[in-house]
């Protein structure tokens, strides 16, 4: 039996799936769920996704079968059939994606049968079973990708040299998803690779249909999208590499070398790009040197967030920015088997720092972890305080920052206190963006 979660930092599987499908090009989600699901998901995004809600057919425009007590008793397949038929008349899409909720899964509607009737008529329509009790929004994102690989991506497509798929960043759940995906796409393009990232403005359904032509899948997450990687390997025979989303030069150097090795790219080509990009990065950073010193901008840090951001931000703070990330709190609900990989990432920092990694789903418990970790001042005259300090987390960690007297920046869901459109933190330029945001938070009152 799992335990409860205080102030969850994610939605249910349906929430993550609806967000992901909304982000697919030209795709219309059709919910087979109880009344309330689409609205609740929409308002949760309204509160947490850096002011981003909706999309082509998102938010409250999402069609739903809106099942009621009658369907709970007698079954909802007929209601779904009617909903799909009506949706096809009213809403224009290149792909329709049926997503189930808790209720329709518990009552056991045969969604596959209903969807296949429409497929037989030649309509591009697929489904995923995303009932909320299956897991959280990151799992829902994974289920959407699995369905695409099983039911949409063409099989038997010839592999094309230099073509890769990249995922592991969940739309809207990673508030910086568009910038993060686009940044990596652009970077890998500089190695001559053709990258399908599914969810950016540069992606198309045709490109997704041809995704089996890739020679490698790059999963930029130790947790999100891994099941889809296994499905894709099984169905389409594409191998995959797993790397945390790279933020800043140190991580991005590693990332490029890893991808280069997996694709057997010319080492000189990769090293050349790394050299150029570092030069550019430090060209920008050069002008920060004086203020970095004069304002004493080095910080102790607590990093709080999802599996992607905790590892990647801590590494950036440690290995590029020269900060001291002492406590790292991963707020995801993870299985025991998923935790060692994240610990491993943080035990091999170039700075030699060994941050304390804690897994905690309950926001109000985080301060307790800090107090157990950092020695308190027992009325000592000379006390090595956790100061100056910074909390990089979500907007739920503002109170923690206030109690530590620390500056605060929200990067991990929910991000209620920032507006995010195309900003991204991945790659070299992403590192510069994160520096801008961290230091802006410090000097905001100047």
């Amino acid at each position, binding site marked *: *039996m*799992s*335990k*409860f*979660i*205080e*102030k*969850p930092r994610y939605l249910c599987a349906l929430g993550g799936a609806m967000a992901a499908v909304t982000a697919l090009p030209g795709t*219309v989600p059709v919910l087979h769920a*109880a*009344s*309330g*699901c689409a*609205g609740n998901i*929409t*308002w949760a995004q*309204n509160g947490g996704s850096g002011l981003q*809600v*909706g999309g*082509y*057919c998102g*938010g*409250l*425009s999402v*069609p739903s079968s*809106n*099942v*009621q*007590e009658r*369907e*709970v008793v007698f079954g909802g397949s007929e209601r779904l059939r009617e909903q799909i038929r*009506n949706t096809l*008349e*009213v*809403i*224009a*899409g290149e792909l329709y994606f049926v997503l189930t*909720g*808790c*209720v329709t899964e*518990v*009552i056991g509607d045969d969604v596959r049968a209903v969807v296949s009737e429409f497929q037989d008529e030649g309509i591009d329509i697929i489904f995923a079973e995303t009932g*909320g*009790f*299956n*897991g959280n929004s990151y799992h829902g994102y994974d289920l959407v990708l699995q369905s695409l690989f099983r039911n949409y991506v063409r099989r038997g497509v010839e592999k094309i040299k230099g073509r890769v798929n990249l995922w592991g960043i969940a739309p809207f759940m990673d508030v910086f998803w568009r910038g993060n995906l686009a940044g990596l796409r652009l970077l890998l393009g500089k190695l001559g690779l053709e990258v399908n990232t599914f969810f950016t403005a540069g992606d198309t359904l045709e490109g997704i249909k041809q995704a089996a032509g890739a020679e490698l899948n790059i999963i930029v997450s130790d947790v999100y999208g891994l099941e889809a990687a296994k499905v894709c390997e099984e169905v389409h025979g594409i191998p995959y590499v797993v790397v945390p989303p790279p933020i800043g030069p140190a991580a991005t150097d590693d990332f490029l070398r890893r991808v280069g090795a997996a694709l057997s790219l010319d080492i000189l080509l990769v090293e050349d790009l790394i050299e150029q990009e570092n030069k550019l990065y430090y060209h920008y950073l050069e002008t920060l040197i004086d203020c970095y010193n004069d304002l004493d901008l080095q910080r102790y840090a607590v990093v709080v967030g999802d599996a992607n951001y905790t590892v990647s931000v801590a590494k950036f703070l440690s290995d590029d920015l020269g900060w001291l990330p002492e406590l790292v709190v991963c707020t995801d*609900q993870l299985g025991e088997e998923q935790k060692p990989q994240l610990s491993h990432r943080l035990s091999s920092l170039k700075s030699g720092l060994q941050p304390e990694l804690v897994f905690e789903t309950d*926001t*109000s418990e985080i301060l307790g972890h800090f107090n157990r970790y950092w020695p308190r001042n027992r009325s000592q005259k000379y006390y090595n305080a956790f100061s100056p300090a910074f909390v990089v987390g979500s907007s*739920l960690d*503002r*109170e923690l920052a206030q109690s530590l007297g620390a500056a605060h920046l929200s990067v991990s869901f929910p991000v209620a206190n920032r507006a995010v459109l195309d900003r991204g933190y991945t790659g070299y330029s992403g590192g510069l963006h994160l520096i801008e945001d961290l230091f802006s938070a410090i000097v905001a009152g100047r």
Partner: protein
Amino acid sequence: MRRGKVKDALWLSTALNETDVISGGEVKLEEAIREVDRRYRPSSIIVAAGCVPGIIGDDIDGVAARLQPQVSAKILPVHCEGFKTKIWATAYDAVYHAIGRNLLDEPREYDQILQDEFEELKEKHILSRTVNLMNVSSMGRVDELELSRLLRSLGLEVNIFPVFAHPEEMYKVTRAAVSISTCPTHDDYFLKHLEEKYGIPYIIRHMPIGIDNTSLWIRDVAAFFGLEEQAEKLISEEVRELHTALAEFKPLFKGKKVFVSAGEIRALANGQLLRELGFEVAGIRSFHHDEYAEVDYEKLAAGNRDFVFNIANAQPFEEVNMLKRTKPDLFLGHWCGNATASKLGIATHVIYNTGLSYIGYQGVYELARRLYRQLKNPLFNKRLSRYVPLPYTDQWYDADPFKYIKIMGGEGVE
């Protein structure tokens, strides 16, 4: 963000998983309640049941009854399973039901050693002039302050209930002289309970949105206390001041067509407010219908122009069809309900936001000020409409907007 300082609400989820669906979630709920009571020491714990416990048959009332002797917080089970109804206003009754059953008991009084007759008389007098001001979660502090200001101008005391009333002080609602609703859809169930059990009369008629509605609302309260004369003085002074202040905005509003979409009473009351500002009401959508709204339909029908009327829960696809036909200059919609109109290039404004002022005379002025702003520069939406497509098929715009409304055995089905 209620009193100027940001504080995150505390809420938890039992995060039911597949195993729980099969073996039941009651044990998990029990453990959560015990831990919440120990960890946060709250005065009350609300257990809100979603769809899954409703289907698998978790007995949340049973859990609450079983645990109540063991925890210090009052446990309030609330039944709000999503599939039970399409009308979200039903949840107001569900919450009131839980409050009415669990939080209204008077604290135990101790015999006083010294009796102060003067103090007792004073308390009695104050209670005889106390009004329960029923707030709703869609109104913010600024709106409560406006209504309190108006009631206090009549020499009345105000007890605001239930949103943000402290659980330990809620019993005070059973001692007032009268209750006044600000949203009839919201309060009918609870006000009847207060009358039946505690003998507190109630007024449930007008939502104080708009000039006339606010005046009617004040008159109702004043009549109860025999303060008609004072009320007329207050109203005429307030209305005179307001009309003077509105004069600078009205030329821009004159003859502009407006479309409104929200919860029933709010939509109708706003329709009247907008007409008072000089707009022409082109259409109104209500999220449901109940009998308390009939008086508001009559008020609107008293205007001389035709307008589209539709009862539906949001349903942007119907809305887009109607907007294409009515071509309004301005649209007011619910949270996350303005995107469709925005993509059509229509000027928009949110019809409720708990930080903004909407209610009372102040609300009329503040709303007018905001609409003036939107209409003075509607380019954000106009530019959007050039490049951001709506997802609807061409054939849909030619179809009957109410094509998919079915009537089954007298029950409307979307």
